[in-house]
């Protein structure tokens, strides 16, 4: 199974999401956590990064981090899947290794 990428930085402040998209292979997974969840929101200057990749890469966002930041599930880019902490553990277990884009 392919790599799991995690991103915990805001795409407006750091280039972690850009770098990840450049280096993530088709079939891998990307989990947005902490300030990384801002990358899952539609209608922003950075929405295209996730919108363009979602057909080849599964994109996940951590629900508790969305809730903390007042991000409604209705406001996510289509295709982004919301997971809880248990789902986070499952993703780590299902993938071959994890690359954290700190």
């Amino acid at each position: 199974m392919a790599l799991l990428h995690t991103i915990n930085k805001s795409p407006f402040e750091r280039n972690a999401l850009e770098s990840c998209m450049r280096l993530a292979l088709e079939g891998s997974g990307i989990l947005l956590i902490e300030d990384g969840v801002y990358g899952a929101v539609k209608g922003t200057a950075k929405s295209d990064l996730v919108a363009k990749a979602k057909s080849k890469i599964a994109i996940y966002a951590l629900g508790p981090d969305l809730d903390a930041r007042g991000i409604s599930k209705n406001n996510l880019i289509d295709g982004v899947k919301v997971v809880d902490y248990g789902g986070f553990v499952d993703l780590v277990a299902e993938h071959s290794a994890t690359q954290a884009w700190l």
Partner: protein
Amino acid sequence: MSDEGGTIKKFMYVNRKAPYGTIYALESLEVVLIGAAFDQDVSLAFVDDGVFQLVKGQNTKGIGMKNFSPTFNALGDYDVNKIYVEKESLAARGLSVDDLLPLKYEDEDEDWAEKDSIRVVSSAELAELLDQQDVVFSF
């Protein structure tokens, strides 16, 4: 305002970080509340990811951190009622003023009429405001 403490200076707190990924946002709010006791001319600016601090509907139960966003509602009672939000930062994040906390204050010069504390300003307007400050606190 009394002048027994000397001249009143213009203080601006510039907030550029999202609320929970780092400690900057919470620390800034703590300093604002402490500074409010000194009767200065205080304003807050929210730029870049700092605008995320003011988004309404925050619920931090799941991440085990304190939701400090309700504390912004108290600023009006401390005579902190100039809260500038950069328009360009909101737009880049798909946000409008309707997505932000409805912060209010009571204007003592107009029979305590309730007014909005948040003022959306352009980059050019914010640049002028920054230039007018005696003291700038950066977070």
